[in-house]
C-alpha cells in the first residue's frame, strides 16, 4: 500500500484558522493509518497569496486550501482506501 506525504502549514494564520485542529485529528488517527502518513509541519510558504484560503495542506505535493477536519479525513480515505474512523 502506498503512503501519503502530508505537509501541513503551521504558520500563524493557518494555525489560527484550523491547522491546530488538523494536527489534532492526524495525531489521533488509528495507528495503522497514522503509520502510512508521512506528516510534516512546514513554516509559512506564502500560500495565502495563491488565491485559495488558509489553512493549507499539501497532499503528495498538491496544495489544498480551506482544509477542514472532515475534508481531510475524506481525502485520506480516498487516497489510502478504506475508512479512516
Amino acid at each position, binding site marked *: 500500500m502506498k503512503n501519503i506525504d502530508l505537509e501541513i502549514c*503551521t*504558520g*500563524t*494564520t493557518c*494555525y*489560527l*484558522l484550523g*491547522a*491546530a485542529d488538523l*494536527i489534532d485529528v492526524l*495525531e489521533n488517527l488509528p495507528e495503522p493509518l497514522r503509520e502510512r502518513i508521512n*506528516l*510534516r*509541519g*512546514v*513554516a*509559512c*510558504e*506564502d500560500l*495565502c*497569496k495563491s488565491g485559495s*484560503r*488558509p489553512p493549507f495542506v499539501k497532499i503528495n505535493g498538491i496544495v489544498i486550501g480551506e482544509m477542514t477536519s472532515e475534508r481531510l479525513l475524506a481525502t485520506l480515505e480516498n487516497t489510502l482506501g478504506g475508512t479512516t474512523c
Partner: protein
Amino acid sequence: MDYFTDIAWAQQVKEGQRIGGDAVFLSRTEKDDRNICILSDGLGSGVKANVLATMTGRMAQRYVEEEKDIIRAAEIIMNTLPVCRERRISYATFTICEITADGEARILEYDNPPYIMIREGRVMEVEKIRRELNRPSAFKKEEILYSEVKLQYGDRLIFFSDGVTQAGLGTPGYPLGWRQKKVAQFIEGLMNTDRMLSSWHLTRSLTRQARFLDRGKAMDDITALSVYFRRPREILVVTGPPMDQKNDAPMARRIAEFPGKTVLAGGTTANLVSRELNRKLTINLKMRTEKVPPASEMEGITLVTEGMLTLTRVAEILEKKDEDALSGYDGASRFAALLINSDRAVFLVGTRINEAHQDPSIPFEIGIRRTIVKRIAAALETNYLKKTTTEYI
C-alpha cells in the same frame, strides 16, 4: 569589567494564607546603575504581616534609591516604625542589599537570618560590623549588622526569611528546624551540581526544599532572594523579515555569528535564515499547545518558533510572572524560560509587513510585532531586571 547581576527571588506562602507576610523589593537606579534588594518579614502572617513588611521594605527601598547611607536609612526606618504593643519588638525585620555599578555590595541586616555568601562554590564568612540601637520603646537590645563585599565573578549573596531556617521545625529529622548550617550545606550541594545555576533556579530549589521539610505545607512564609554576580549571558531574538531584502544575508550572518543563545520567532524569518545559512528547518509537531503553534529545530539555533501567537504568549507569561508556564514544552514556554535565564536580550525586529496577517477572516486581531516586542522587553526589565536592546531592520 563586563558583568551582570542576576537577581531573583522565590516564595512559598504559609499554608492557608493567600498573601505572604514576607515582602521583597527589587530595583535598579537609572542614574548610577545600582541594584537594590530588600527582604522584609512582617510580624505574623497574612495581610497584616504583608502590610508591615511592605511599609518597611518600601521605606528602605526609597531611602537607598535616594542615595542615603544604608546604616542611616535603617536607623530612620527603625525610629519611624512603631514597635508592637504586645510583644515590644519591631513590626518587621529587614535586610537591605545595595550593589553599586562596580560590584561593591553593601548589606545591612536587622533580625533576618544571616545571609550566605558563596565564593567559588563554597560558603565564605564575611566580617560584619555590629551597631546597637537604643530605642526607649524597645523591649530587647536591638542591633543591626553591616557588611561590605567586593564581588568577584561567580560570587553569590543569598538572603532568606526565617521560614527557611525554621522549616521542618518539630519533625523527627529536624526538631529545631532546618537551621542556618544545613541551609548553607544545601546551597553548597546545589553549587556542586551546577556552579552556573541561575538565581531563579537557586531560589526555587531552596524554597521548595524548605516547604518539603515542612511536609509540603509551609508553616511560615518561606522566602529566598539571590544575587549572582556573573559574566552576562546574552540572547538574540530575531523576529520578522527585514524591510529591505538586501538585509536578509547580513541578518542571517549576524545570527550565525552571535556568541550567545539565539531564537527565531516567525515562519518567514525561519525560512529566510534557513535559506541564507543553508540549514534545514524541521518543525516539531509535538512542541505546541492549542494556542501556540509548533516550534521547530534548526542546527546552531537555540529555538525556532512561530511568530505573533508565540510572542503574544511569551509577553503574557512574563507580564504575569506565570512561572508554572515555564516548565511547558511548547515554543512560548521554552522561549520565556530562555529569556529569564539570560541577562541581556537583543531584539532584532524586521519591519516588513506580513500580508498573511492582513486577512480579514482571522477571528481576532494579530498585534503589531513592534508592540509585542516592546511588551516583552518592558516585562523583562521591570519584572526580571534584565537589560534589553531593540533594533529595527
